[in-house]
C-alpha cells in the first residue's frame, strides 16, 4: 500500500520517513530497527540470466532457517555494471563485493559472513594481480566512473518507490512545478548543455524549446527501443531506476505543455517492462502521475507501448509511426516531431539515458552538469562494454574520458594477452576506431571526426583475432536485415554493399570493388531517407579508412590476416614441429588430417598433414595441438 503524496510537504515527509532505508548503502550508516546488514543481489538482465533470481530464493530460505531474516535486508537492485562477473552480490555496510555467486555458495555466505562476520574470501572479486578488493570504491572498475544516469542503479530497489523518494526522487518534479516556469525549465536544459544520448546528440533544450512553441495537444515520448546490438544502457536504467524516467518525462511534459507520455520499449526487455510498469503503477497510486500532481494542478499520464523487433523504430519518426500502429517506416522531416509528431501533434522524444540525467540537472543546477565533460559535450555517457574485454559490462564516464581509460583501466584490458586492434562505437551506425586513436577523448564531435559516432553507447572491443572486413560485414548484414525497405538507397544500396563485402570475403574481390564500396557508401549516406540509412555505411567507410590493408590482403593476397574468413584461411601443420601424436586427426570432424611418411628430426613418429580440399577450417585441430605445430594463415 503506497501512501498518497498530494503535496510537496508530503513528498518531503516521505523522504524523511524512508531516508534511513537506504542509508546503509550510501555510506551514511544508520541502522533501522534490528536490521544490521543489507545484502544486495543484482536483478539486472545479465545477472538474472546467470541465475540471480534463484540466489534470492535460496538466501531467503537460508536466512529464515538460521532465524536471522529480520536482521538482514535483501534488496534486488538494478545493474551494478560488471555483468561479466554475474551474479553479483554486495553486502553492506562493509561493501563486500562477491562475484559469480552460485546457489551452493549461499549457505557459506550466510554462515561465515552474515552470522560469523568473516568475509568469504574465495568469492570476493579479485582484480588483476590477484589483489582482492573489499569494497566498491576500491575497484578500478568503479574508480574512474562517474555515475549520474546510473546513480541509483545497483543502489535502490527499483520496485519500491519509497527508496527512490528517499534518494531525493520526485524532488526535481516538485521543484519545477512549484518554483519554475516552463521557460525556466527549458532554459535550464539549454544551459546544462545536455545533448540527446540516443545517437545524434541533438541539444535536448532546443528540442523542448521548439515543442514549447507549438500549441494545442502535445505528447512526450521516450525512446526505449534500444536496438544496437551489444548496447544495454537504457535497459539498465529502466531496470535499475525506472522512476527517474517517469519523473523526467513529467518534467518534460510540464516544460512543453503535454499531459500524456508514451514509452516505446523493446518487447525483448521483459524485466525492464515489468519494473517500469510497477513504477508507473506506484507513481499513479502515490499521485505522482495522474491528475493534479502534488496539488499543483499539473496533470500527466503515461503508458507503455512495446516495440516489436524492428531496429529502425529507434529512429524518431519510425518510432512514432509504430506507436500509431503502422509499419515502422520513417517519414521525411520536416515537419519535425516538435511541430508534427505523434498522432500529428507536437511531440518531444528523448531516449532513456537522456531522461535519466534530467532530475539531477534540475536539482543540482545546469552548471553542475555542464562542469562535467568537454566543451561541446557535457555531462557523462554510459557505455556498454563488450567484445574482447575483461570487464564486460556497463560503465558511466565523464565525456572526454579517453578510450584508453575506458578499455585499459575500467575495462581491465584485453583478455588472454591479446593485442587491442579496434573499438567499435555507435553500433551499426558507428565506425571502428583503430589502436592509434586510442587516446581520443570520447565526445560527440571527436567521434564523428574520426568516422564513428557516439550512437547510443555500445562499445565493442576487438583484438587481433577479429577481421575488420568481417566486422564491417557483420554490421552491414544487421543493417540490411533491419532496413525498412522504404527508400531506394538503403533498401537496395546496403544490400549491394553487403554483396561486395561477401565477394571480398569469399576471395573473389577486385581492387575496383574498394572504389565501388566507397562510392556506394557515400551515396547511401547522402541520399537515404532516415538516420539508419544515412549511417549504415559507417562501419564500411571507417574500416576502409583505417584498415584498408586488410581489405587489400583479402583482395590481392587472398588472405585473411586475422584468420577469420574461412575461404581465405588455411591450416597447415609445420612438419618439423609435429611429434606425430595424432590427436589432431582424432579431433578433425571431417577426416582431413592424415599421417605422412616424414619423420622430423628428433621425433619418433611421422608428422601429420592437412588435406586442404577436405578441411572445413573449423579450427578444432589448432585447439587440440599442444605443440603449436598447426598454424593458420
Amino acid at each position: 500500500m503506497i501512501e498518497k503524496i498530494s503535496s510537496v510537504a508530503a513528498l518531503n515527509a516521505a523522504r524523511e520517513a524512508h531516508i534511513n532505508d537506504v542509508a546503509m548503502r550510501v555510506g551514511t550508516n544508520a541502522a533501522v530497527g534490528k536490521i544490521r546488514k543489507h545484502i544486495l543481489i543484482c536483478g539486472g538482465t545479465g545477472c538474472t540470466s546467470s541465475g540471480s533470481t534463484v540466489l534470492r530464493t535460496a538466501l531467503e530460505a537460508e536466512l529464515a532457517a538460521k532465524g536471522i531474516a529480520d536482521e538482514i535486508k535483501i534488496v534486488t537492485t538494478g545493474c551494478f555494471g560488471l555483468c561479466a562477473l554475474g551474479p553479483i552480490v554486495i553486502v553492506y555496510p562493509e561493501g563486500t563485493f562477491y562475484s559469480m555467486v552460485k546457489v551452493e555458495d549461499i549457505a557459506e555466505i550466510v554462515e561465515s559472513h552474515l552470522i560469523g562476520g568473516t568475509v568469504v574470501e574465495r568469492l570476493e572479486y579479485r582484480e588483476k594481480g590477484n589483489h582482492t578488493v573489499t569494497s566498491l570504491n576500491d575497484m578500478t572498475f568503479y574508480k574512474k566512473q562517474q555515475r549520474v544516469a546510473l546513480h541509483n542503479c545497483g543502489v535502490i530497489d527499483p520496485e519500491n518507490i519509497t527508496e527512490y523518494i528517499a534518494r531525493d526522487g520526485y524532488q526535481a518534479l516538485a521543484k519545477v512545478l512549484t518554483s519554475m516556469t516552463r521557460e525556466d525549465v527549458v532554459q535550464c536544459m539549454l544551459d546544462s548543455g545536455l545533448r540527446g544520448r540516443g545517437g545524434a546528440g541533438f541539444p535536448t533544450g532546443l528540442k523542448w524549446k521548439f515543442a514549447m512553441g507549438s500549441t494545442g495537444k502535445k505528447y512526450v515520448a521516450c525512446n526505449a527501443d534500444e536496438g544496437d546490438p551489444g548496447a544495454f544502457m537504457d535497459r539498465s536504467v529502466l531496470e535499475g531506476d525506472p522512476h527517474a524516467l517517469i519523473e523526467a518525462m513529467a518534467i518534460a511534459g510540464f516544460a512543453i505543455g503535454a499531459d500524456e507520455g508514451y514509452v516505446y520499449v523493446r518487447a525483448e526487455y521483459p524485466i525492464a517492462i515489468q519494473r517500469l510498469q510497477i513504477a508507473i503503477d506506484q507513481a499513479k497510486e502515490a499521485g505522482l502521475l495522474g491528475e493534479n500532481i502534488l496539488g499543483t494542478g499539473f496533470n500527466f499520464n503515461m503508458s507503455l507501448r512495446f516495440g516489436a523487433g524492428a531496429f529502425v523504430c529507434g529512429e524518431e519518426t519510425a518510432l512514432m509511426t509504430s506507436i500509431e500502429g503502422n509499419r515502422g517506416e520513417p517519414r521525411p522531416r520536416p515537419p519535425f516531431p516538435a511541430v508534427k509528431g505523434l498522432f500529428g501533434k507536437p511531440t518531444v522524444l528523448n531516449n532513456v539515458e537522456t531522461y535519466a540525467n534530467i532530475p539531477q540537472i534540475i536539482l543540482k543546477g545546469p552548471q553542475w552538469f555542464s562542469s562535467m565533460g568537454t566543451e561541446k559535450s557535457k555531462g557523462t555517457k554510459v557505455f556498454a562494454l563488450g567484445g574482447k574485454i575483461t570487464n564486460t559490462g556497463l560503465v558511466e564516464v565523464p565525456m572526454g574520458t579517453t578510450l584508453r581509460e575506458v578499455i585499459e583501466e575500467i575495462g581491465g584490458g584485453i583478455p588472454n594477452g591479446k593485442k587491442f586492434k579496434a573499438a567499435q562505437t555507435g553500433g551499426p551506425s558507428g565506425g571502428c576506431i583503430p589502436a592509434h586513436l586510442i587516446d581520443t577523448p570520447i565526445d560527440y564531435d571527436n567521434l564523428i571526426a574520426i568516422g564513428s559516432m557516439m550512437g547510443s553507447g555500445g562499445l565493442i572491443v576487438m583484438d587481433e583475432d577479429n577481421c575488420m572486413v568481417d566486422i564491417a560485414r557483420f554490421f552491414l548484414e544487421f543493417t540490411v536485415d533491419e532496413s525498412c525497405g522504404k527508400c531506394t538507397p538503403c533498401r537496395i544500396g546496403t544490400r549491394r554493399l553487403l554483396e561486395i563485402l561477401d565477394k571480398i570475403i569469399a576471395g573473389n574481390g577486385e581492387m575496383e570493388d574498394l572504389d565501388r564500396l566507397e562510392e556506394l557508401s557515400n551515396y547511401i549516406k547522402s541520399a537515404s531517407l532516415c538516420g539508419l540509412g544515412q549511417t549504415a555505411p559507417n562501419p564500411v567507410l571507417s574500416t576502409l579508412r583505417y584498415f584498408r590493408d586488410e581489405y587489400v590482403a583479402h583482395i590481392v593476397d587472398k588472405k585473411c590476416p586475422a584468420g577469420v574468413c574461412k575461404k581465405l584461411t588455411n591450416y597447415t601443420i609445420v612438419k618439423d614441429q609435429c611429434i606425430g601424436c595424432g590427436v589432431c586427426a582424432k579431433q578433425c570432424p571431417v577426416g582431413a588430417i592424415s599421417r605422412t611418411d616424414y619423420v622430423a628430426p628428433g621425433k619418433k613418429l611421422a608428422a601429420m598433414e592437412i588435406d586442404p580440399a577436405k578441411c572445413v577450417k573449423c579450427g578444432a585441430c589448432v585447439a587440440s595441438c599442444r605443440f603449436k605445430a598447426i598454424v593458420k594463415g
Partner: protein
Amino acid sequence: MEMVNVTINGISVAVPKGSTVLDAAKQIGIDIPTLCYLKEINEIGACRICLVEVQELRGATLGPKRMVTSCVYPVTEGMVVTTNSPAITASRKMNLELLLSNHNKECLSCVRSTTCELQRLCQEYGVNENRFKGAVTESGLDLSSPAIVRDGSKCILCRRCVAACRNMQGIGVIGANNRGFDTVIGTAMDGTQASTSCINCGQCIVACPTGALTERDDTDKVFEALGDPTKKVYICIAPSVRAQIGECFGYEPGTDVEGKMVAAVRRLGFDGVFDMNVTADLTIVEEANELLGRLNNNGVLPMITSCSPGWIKYCEHYFPEMTENLSTCKSPQQMFGALMKTYFAEKEGIDPEDIFFVSAIPCTAKKFEVGRPDQSAAGVPDVDVAITTRELGRMINRAGINFKALADERFDTPFSRGSGAGIIFGATGGVMEAALRYAAEVILDKKLESVEFPEVRGVEGVKLAAYKLGDLEVKVAVASGTKNAKELLERVKSGELDVQFIEIMGCPGGCVNGGGQPYQPASVRNSIDLRAVRAAVLYKADAATDLRKSQDNAEVMALYREFLGAPNSHKAHEILHTSYIKRGL
C-alpha cells in the same frame, strides 16, 4: 498570400509560403525528376530521385549544402537551391543504377516501354545497367485477376499503387509486405489478387510508373476473332474513350478524336463499330423508370446507379446490406452486348454464338464484369471481351494504322448516335444529370427549358443537390471514388443524409479517370487535374449537340418500339437487368 523568396539555379523567384522546392522549381520551368511522388496522394519521400542541394539561411549567413527531398521539402526565405550539379546527377544516376540492379529489364517487350517513367529517366541519365549486379528481390507474377496483372519483378516500390488503393480508394488490398530488401507490394499473406476484395478499378495501374501493374491484355483474343471467318465481330465504344484515346497517339489530354477513332477501329476489320452512348441513353430510360417505380411503390430507396462495375463489386464486398439499393439495370456495356446477341442477332439473322462482341471502355473492372453471372441474355455471355482505351490504342498501333492521318468517320447503325446525356456518362455526375433530364420531363410532363444541372457537375468527391419537381422534392447525391462512396453511404446508413437517388462511380472523377485510360506520367498528373480536363471534352460535346436527352434518341425509341416494348417491361427486365451477390469480406 505570404511569399517566400528563393534562388533556384541562380534564378530568383517568389513563391507562396509552404510551397515545396519541386513546385517552386516548376514555376520557373525547371523540372525535377520524381518517381514516388503523386501530389496529395503519395507524398512519402521514398524514392530519393528528386534530391536537390539546398542551403538555408542560418541567421544572416547561408548554412551548409544539404541534400533534401524536393517533393516534400518546403521552401524557406532566402533558400538557395541547386537542382542539377554534378553531385546531384551522380546521385540520381546511382539511384537509377540501384533500381535497375533489382529490376526485370525486359524493357524491349514491356507494355510500358516508351511510357515507363523509369525507362525515361534511365535514358536521360545514361545509366549503366550492370555495375551493381546482385540478388533480386523474390517477387511473384500474379495472373489470377481477370483485370489486373501484378509483376513484382518490375516494381520499384514507389508505392503509388498502394496510395491509390489504400488512401485514394480506401480499399487497401495491396500494400507493402516484408521489410528491407525483401519488401514487395502484395496482398495479405501474399495471396492472389483474385482472392482479395479488389474491385478491379485499375487506379493502381494508372498510378504505376513502370510495368509492374498492367491490365490483363486481351487484344490477342480480339485479333484472333477478327481473323476468324466464322465470326461476326462487332465493337461498341464507350463515351470516355473518344475523349482520351488521342493521348495514345500524342494528342494533348482533352482532345476529342471521335471521328478518327471510328475510322481507325473500322480499319481494324470490325463488322460494325457502334456507339455505346446509345445504351447509355437506354440505361437512363430503364434506370429513371426504375427510380420512378421505386418512388411510387415504396421501393427500396435511395436507389443507387449500377453502371460502374468497380463500384458494384465494392458494394458487394463492403456494403452487402445495400445491394438491394442498387439499380438492377445492367451497365451500358452489358445492355449493349445483350441487345447484340438478342435484338441485333434476330434482326440480322445471325446465330448469337457466331457473334463476337467487343467493348472498348476506359475501365479495367469491365473485364471482370463480362464474366459475371446473370449477364448472358442470349445464353452466351453478353460481351465476349472488354478492352481498355489503352489496349484499343495498342491494337491500332499494331495494325499499322496512321491514326492522325485518318479522316473522320461515323458510327454504324443501328447504334450510331447517342444523346448528350449519354455522352456525359463518362464524368462524375453525368449519369445523374442524364437521369434528371429524363425524370424531370416525366414528372413535370413538359419539355425542360434548361437541360443542365450544374450542381452535380465537377470533380468533388461527394456532391449533394435537391430539385423541386412539381410537388415532388428529389434529393440526390453523387460520389466518385470508393473512399468518397463509403463516406457518403455511411452518412446515408446513419440516417444523417436523406436522399432518393445516388450516382456512384468507382473511380475518382468517373470513367474519364478510369483505370483503363491512357498513361500519363506523374509530371502531368501532378500539374493538371486529368479528371476535369478530360470531363470538359464530354461536356463540350454535350453542349454542342442538338440531341441532349436520352428520351429524344430515335434509335433508343426504335428499340422499344421494335423489340423491348415499354421501359421496365418483362422483356426489358429479362434482357437489360441483372442481379448481385452479397460477397462481404
